[in-house]
């Protein structure tokens, strides 16, 4: 694992000179003096500044690599509300990430500024002549400051976008290509993506500097005791920012920064998701923990790799399948098959369990609504109660979210989403709302707002109206923050479903292969439980897709690095489940009638055998 990361970082370090040379070459670009441009860039490459910058950049890449390793996840955390997303962004761990990346951004742009040279060379320079007769006063070089701040900004936005877009999520490839070809295929996309992102960053940064640029400038001036050069254009003006050469350099440095980091990330992903072949069994007892059945019981990355290996062996390798179907030498027990099958089935039944619980929560949620036994007033109060419960539960879930980003239980998913009536221990909160007050029950904002004046003009003055407006605005904000994002809870439920998909594929492939290859009949003994587990899951998944938002398609992300695979995992799981069922029914055909199962399952199976699913 760490070895793979080291290898990926080593490759990114090896690629650094190439990108740096390209950067140096492009930074000197001039259309009208091509020969001078080329000769200058070549002489630049041998300069000591470039060598020093390279050493520094290696350090930066190392740190980025370490952060990739520390922050990656194979199971993404899907925030179900805006407030949870906010919590994710403000989480201390994430703050460290942002801070370090801002600092490294400064370092990279410092290197870039040094390599470009010219006016980005130094922080403070003697003021120009007409400024003062003394000439000894040091003036701030605003370009330099502008550049370094841009680095910090880009580093921060890289980190921020990383958390918003789940850049730390590592998904596995649908096909097994070798590492070099994968990298080669992705590289053009990564370059394009970096360039486009850099363009957006430059735009945002210019806006930022236009409005707030004077703050850091004044701060630097006072701390370093340098002066502002009034003869030069200030950069937080329109004319100062419309310097195309500056913008070009800024964009190029941003692209360079993002490209090195993205390449590091890409290589990291490619290296750790590469298929690894675990031995099915070992004759040495000390190696047993390295064998496939044992690794399947571990967590996260190792488990995912083991499941991927199971999926591949079940499709491609006859000899390894034979090992799975083999009997233990003394005793004659199918330990390998039993362990693998048990693990896969427990994964699948966990998912069914999770889905069923989620459906129960949703169903109970629907039933609790007619809690209002009295009048209209009463129902609005329950609405308020719901709202406050929601806020509390969301706050609680924030803490939960911050503690574990690991596997989700439906209750935790639900805590993060709206469950207005799930907790009843918040009655004191309702006490704060006076039922006679005019802003009582103002949650259904648009309707009340429109009717509002008619209701209130009789009894309340202008002051109260202002109060109400204020209160409403806050409530709308809260509503916005706590409202469940559509389909997010669905995504969160299926966040780790890649494991289930592999388990289904691997298991069904093994079962189908056993028709011809299983000499001892070890698979037959498990066939009823495999079928019933799959049918149960099928039922749960079908029910889940009947819920609102569950079958709505997410927006497809355009780039390779913003991996949105997890958003569609539920569809992939549904397809894989059907394929797995069909694979078994196609292989066994009429023989399945002799498998023992409940009448309901038999009916369902019959549907599959008649190709009606």
């Amino acid at each position, binding site marked *: 694992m760490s070895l793979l990361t080291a290898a990926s970082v080593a490759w990114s370090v090896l690629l650094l000179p190439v990108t740096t040379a390209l950067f140096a070459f492009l930074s000197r670009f001039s259309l009208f003096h091509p020969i001078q441009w080329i000769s200058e860039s070549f002489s630049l490459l041998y300069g000591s500044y470039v060598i020093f910058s390279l050493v520094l950049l290696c350090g930066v890449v190392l740190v980025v690599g370490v952060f990739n390793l520390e922050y990656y996840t194979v199971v993404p955390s899907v925030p179900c509300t805006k407030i949870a997303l906010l919590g994710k962004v403000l989480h201390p761990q994430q703050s460290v990430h942002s801070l370090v990346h801002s600092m490294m951004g400064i370092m990279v742009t410092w290197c870039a500024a040094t390599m470009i040279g010219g006016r980005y060379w130094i922080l403070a320079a003697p003021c120009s002549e007409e400024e003062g007769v003394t000439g000894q006063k040091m003036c701030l070089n605003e370009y330099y400051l502008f550049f370094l701040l841009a680095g910090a900004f880009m580093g921060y936005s890289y980190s921020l976008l990383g958390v918003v877009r789940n850049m730390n999520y590592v998904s596995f490839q649908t096909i097994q290509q070798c590492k070099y*070809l994968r990298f080669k295929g992705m590289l053009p996309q990564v370059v394009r993506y970096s360039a486009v992102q850099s363009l957006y960053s430059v735009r945002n940064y210019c806006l930022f500097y236009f409005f707030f640029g004077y703050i850091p400038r004044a701060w630097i001036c006072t701390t370093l005791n340098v002066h502002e050069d009034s003869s030069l254009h200030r950069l937080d003006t329109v004319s100062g920012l419309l310097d195309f050469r500056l913008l070009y350099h800024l964009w190029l440095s941003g692209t360079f920064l993002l490209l090195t980091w993205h390449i590091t990330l890409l290589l990291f992903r490619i290296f750790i998701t590469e298929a690894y072949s675990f031995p099915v069994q070992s004759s040495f007892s000390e190696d047993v923990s390295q064998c496939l059945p044992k690794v399947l019981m571990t967590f996260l990355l190792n488990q995912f790799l083991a499941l991927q290996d199971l999926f591949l062996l079940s*499709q491609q390798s006859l000899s390894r399948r034979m090992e799975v179907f083999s009997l233990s030498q003394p005793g004659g027990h199918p330990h390998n098959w039993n362990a693998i099958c048990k693990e896969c089935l427990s994964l699948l039944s966990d998912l069914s369990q999770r889905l069923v619980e989620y459906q129960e929560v949703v169903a109970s949620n629907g039933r609790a609504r007619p809690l209002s036994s009295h009048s209209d007033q009463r129902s609005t109060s329950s609405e308020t109660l719901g709202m406050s419960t929601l806020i509390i539960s969301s706050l609680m879930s924030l803490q939960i979210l911050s503690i574990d980003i690991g596997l989700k239980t439906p209750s935790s998913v639900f805590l993060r989403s709206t469950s207005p009536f799930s907790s009843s221990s918040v009655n004191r909160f309702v006490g704060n709302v006076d039922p006679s007050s005019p802003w009582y029950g103002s949650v259904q904002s648009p309707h009340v707002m429109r009717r509002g004046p008619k209701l209130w003009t009789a009894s309340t003055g202008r002051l109260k109206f202002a109060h109400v407006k204020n209160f409403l605005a806050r409530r709308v904000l809260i509503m916005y923050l706590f409202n469940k994002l559509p389909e997010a809870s669905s995504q969160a439920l299926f966040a780790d479903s890649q494991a289930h998909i592999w388990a289904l594929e691997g298991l069904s492939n093994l079962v189908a292969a056993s028709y011809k290859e299983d000499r001892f009949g070890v698979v037959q003994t498990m066939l009823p439980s495999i079928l019933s587990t799959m049918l149960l899951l099928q039922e749960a998944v079908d029910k889940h897709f009947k819920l609102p938002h569950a079958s709505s398609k997410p927006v*497809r992300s355009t780039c390779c690095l913003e991996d949105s695979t997890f958003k569609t995992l539920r569809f992939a799981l549904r*397809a894989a489940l059907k394929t797995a069922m069909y694979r078994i029914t196609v292989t066994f055909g009429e023989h399945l009638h002799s498998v023992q199962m409940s009448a309901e399952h038999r009916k369902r199976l019959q549907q599959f055998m008649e190709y009606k699913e």
Partner: protein
Amino acid sequence: MNSLSLFPPPGPDGNITLFESNNELVCGTSLGSRQKQGWEPPSLLFPRESLKPHSRPESSSKAAFLDHRDTLWMRSARAWRDSGLSGLLDEIANCTEEEVPRWLTVGCSWTLALLRWVSSFHGSLFPHLTLSSEDMVAEFSQVLDWSDCAVRAFAWHPHTDKFAVSLLDDSIRIYNSKSATAPTLKHRLQRNVAALQWKPLCASALAVACHNCLLVWHVDPTSLSTRPSSGCAQVLSHPGHCPVTSIAWSPNGSLLLSASPVDTAMMVWDVAGESCVPLQRVGGGGVTFLSWSPDGSRVLASTPSALFRVWETRTWTCERWPCLKGRCQTGCWSPDGTRLLFSVQGEMVIYALTFTDAPGSSKAAAIVADLSETSFSTSQGQVRVGGQVQTMAWDPRGERLAVLLKGTEPEPVISQHILLPVVRSHSTTSIGFVKGESGAEPRLLQFHPHFPNGALLTVCWSNGRISHVPFFFVSAGGSVLNPGGSPPWPLPQSRAVENGERLLYTEMSS
């Protein structure tokens, strides 16, 4: 080697081929002369006249509908969205002088001319790029004379008695043995359908190769609706990947491949996730035809140039096979995936390639059938048959091969025929020519994937008829589920070497 001279002469005019029994094709005048056995797929007729093709030659109708009072910005934005940079330049170059300064229009027209010159250079490298996309589909489609054919694509479901037909009016109909309803699928993006394929190990998913996207329909088999809504279709598209001329599902149903003659990358789709992995190889200038071997281990991908590739699907590396004469027009795999038959444009022969996992296997293609023109004397006089191969189909048991020939000359030669060599354990036997109604030419053929009593060939004819010709035989090598290795071809390797001059060699590449 098999050649056309070994074939029995085609049947008399006015007769149609009904079925095969005892290694002979039986002709008759009507379909009723054979008793029915179980479910018979319906013989359908889609008259060419009843189908209205969509008269949408791209952009010709644009001027009629576009509101010309739009501002320049609006028009430019629309041109950019519709046809990219060249559209934008064209729009600006054609502006009046009041709207834009003269130097801009002149600059745009110069840039446009430069662009066209560069693209014409590109086009001279790969001539197919100069075709319009509709012509491109017609050129590379497996259907003979695609643009004028009433039936444009046909697909049997791999597991159940159900098939889908794509018609000239861009609609798709689905016929099922178990239900009387025949749903019609229509979609806004479903234009110029070049290929259809049902997803294996699934009852409902049907992939459609369209003009500028791939559609995957999910047709609920239990639904009674005759017009499933377009919400049942998933749209898969990738910029620069159109028109799609060929698609192939992996036999285990997990991946979908798509190919476009314009795009040098072949797309591997994860359909549920709607994401794709491009497999880019620059040589050849595009990918025209895909065929996945039934065991799932290899994929044939032919290009518009004299080059085709065979991908292995474990790590997705490919072997390059340069051809001598023309591009690879079609290919088909034996049921166990060890043998590939293919034909090359400009040659009237069928080549075979054998793949084994053992190292040192021969890396040369051998000629297995010669299809050059041959004369037969029948009761109506001389009949000449022969030509290039348009498409081939190998039945799922590996015992019958149907070949659709494309004639070299239009008139007196009755050239478009299907010939069916039987493949037996140690001999290639010729069966004969399948004839349709008089005046009808075959356009497309496909075997039923699991016909119990032998093989069932479905042929689409030029008059819009879809007929099914059963071949009754007892399989020599086990059942469909258990193909015990495809029978070897009679041709020993040495013979091919003697033939010498037309061998093809591979170059290994990754």
